[in-house]
């Protein structure tokens, strides 16, 4: 053990020498100068201890919190991934449904259910014979497309 005074045996800072006792003026003065330093040291040590404890607790708390957040994020990520997969699946099924419902086969079946029937032979009526017998004669305007057919045809072919 060192010769230094124990921190627990706190000396009185201003002790009056007892009468008849040997004069200890120099030593008392020295103890009186040391005492504030010890107190500061003690205070510093206490503060350091508290700080270390605080840092430790905070670190531990942060670590735990970080892990909790990480775990939560992992679960959230997993859930999002599943949601994405489900939405993708839903999208594909809807796409298939659209393609299926708009296919010619489905349209024909649906039309048949509505009472529509397939037409028989298609008869194309030439324009020249479209006028019923005895019906009004269709007058062709000069310069109309029918009149200038070739010109119109060339124009259409140039810009279809």
């Amino acid at each position, binding site marked *: 053990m060192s010769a230094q005074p124990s921190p627990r045996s706190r000396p009185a800072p201003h002790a009056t020498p007892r009468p008849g006792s040997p004069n200890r003026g120099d030593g008392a003065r020295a103890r009186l100068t040391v005492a504030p330093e010890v107190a500061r040291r003690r205070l510093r040590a206490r503060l350091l201890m508290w700080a270390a404890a605080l840092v430790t607790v905070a670190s531990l708390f942060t670590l735990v919190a970080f*892990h909790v957040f990480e775990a939560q994020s992992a679960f959230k990520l*997993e859930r999002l991934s599943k949601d994405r997969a489900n939405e993708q699946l839903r999208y594909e099924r809807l796409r298939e449904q659209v393609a299926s419902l708009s*296919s*010619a086969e489905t349209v024909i079946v649906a039309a048949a259910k509505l009472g529509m*029937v*397939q037409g028989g*032979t298609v008869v194309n009526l030439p324009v*020249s014979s479209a006028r019923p017998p005895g019906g009004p004669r269709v007058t062709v305007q000069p310069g109309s497309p029918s009149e200038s057919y070739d010109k119109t045809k060339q124009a259409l072919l140039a810009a*279809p």
Partner: protein
Amino acid sequence: MRRLGVCSALLILGFGLIAARVGQLQLASGAKYKQLSVKLALHTIPLTAQRGSIFDRNGRDLAMSIEKTTVYADPTLVTDPVAEAARLAPVLHADEHALLQGLSDKGTAAKPRHFVYLAHTVDDAVARAAQALKLPGIGFVPESARSYPAGAVAASVIGRVRSDGPGLDGIERQYDHLLAGKSGELVVEQDPMGHDIPDTQRTRVDAQRGTDVVLTVDEDLQWQAEYSLLDQVKATGAKSGMAVVVDVTNGDVLAMASVLGATPTTPAAVAGPGDNNAPLTDLFEPGSTNKLITLSWALEHGHVTADTKFLVPESIQVEPNVAPYHDAEPHTGVPNGIEKWTTADIVRESSNVGTIEIAQRMHNQELADGLRAFGLGKQTAIEWPYQPAGLLLSPSRYYATGKYSTAIGYGVAVTGIQMLDAFATIANGGVTRPPRLLGATIDAKGVRHAAAVPAGSRVVSPNTASVMTQMLEGVVANGTGACAAIPSYVVAGKTGTAKKALATGGYTDAATMASFIGFAPADHPRFATLVVLDENNLRYGGEVAAPVFSEITQFALQQYGVTPSDVKNTQYSAARAVAAAAGNTCAVPHGSDLVAAQLRLQAQQAAAQNQSAGAAQAGAGAGGATSGRTGSTAGAGTTTASLPPDPSKHT
């Protein structure tokens, strides 16, 4: 004090032992236990690559992959196989006995069986119903399934895939390397409940989705082609039929239809997945449609012009000991049956004799070169599994008749797409327009890559193509192909009616390949269409195939908004008059008309059967003295006089 010391010592000893054991586990055996732990926790999850979709040219889905549920069993966990099989069978629509076998197959004690497939890729409703049963040992896994939302449309073109993925036929097979994609895997640590353990080892190799394939086919036009062809096959009782529509401007195949005729057990139907895609796989003798090549080559090499005149008799004998070639129709109203026809008339009337007279001006090698120049005898530009190149006789093996038979479309075997390619060449001003089925690909990132348009090569001059086109217009306006006319458009085309070869040699009257190949509008070609009907109740291509051509091509012209080139209906009116004079309605029967046509056909077939039965009875009654004559007559009946000689007889 002493007791306290003993307790402390025991405590220290206890903790010391624990520390020693921990030290032993961590330091001495740590690596081993770490490995064991990782092995137990690590799971490798295969990531199956999603197969690419197949689209039509307008982006409509023809084939796509979607996730469905597969039902499996762990037989070791199944408590009552008999009861479970009985409950599952009606839900899964599966055979109860087969299910029972699967559920009972527990394997051996050394090697227990933990996985048996019960039903692949069932519908959602079925999966839900099976899950609701909550049977022990029955599990469910997601599995990718191929779906064809357009139904049977273009089924023989698209093909099919095996349950585990690879394409079996059609486009699915041809472009399997693109569609399949690349599988990946996810290595992850999981707890016993199957949850991922956070902040642990995780390795992921992403699966690469397959490339999407965009076809040149137009779903609507494809359906129209199949619909028209199917009804005509039904109406004529044909054995099968094929139709193809190609965009002459870029070679895109817009429709490729195959129809299978009725059999005693099945009705006529559009070819399904796994059936032959006839236009690319079936070989046949083209007959008169091949005259296009003969005449184009003769025009190109200056042997004839459109106005060159020929004296065309009804038949021609090219060699003294060989049966003569005949025209299909008798030459009536002219002295000695000899017509004075120009080249254009020969094309219009589809005269075999006239074409042979033209071929006589050509060398063997010249004709053979012409056939090859038009693409016969080699595969087309379309990428297709097992596409045949066709069969061409070597000019050295033409002998006496090979050149003439070839000139009129016999002794050569072609695919439908090859013949259509030849017509597309004429429509394209004499430059080949190689057909293509693949329009583009779309990679996993969604980037579209257009497929290259194969370059064409000049076969005949623009002038030859133009003259040939005019002659082909005559075929429709005033010839054998009148039924191919389309209102408001000018059509150019050629009919073909090829008798089918017998396995025993020679040809038969009882079976023909009736065809019509043409393009429209003739003055500004946009679409080239081929229609072929196999064994169609003995009718000409101009009667049975041309109306189908007209209906399909008219739909295409209207669908694509092609400008009408003959609003005065000059060609259409003339063609209708010709057809009406021949008593032909030029119609593909649909709906009630189809029912009536089928009834007529059945009545005809029944009458023919009665007639043949009566003839057989009469023959039997006549006795052995006339049997030789009967046999001779039968022989003449099956090998018609107008047939070209079989080239194989002259080897």
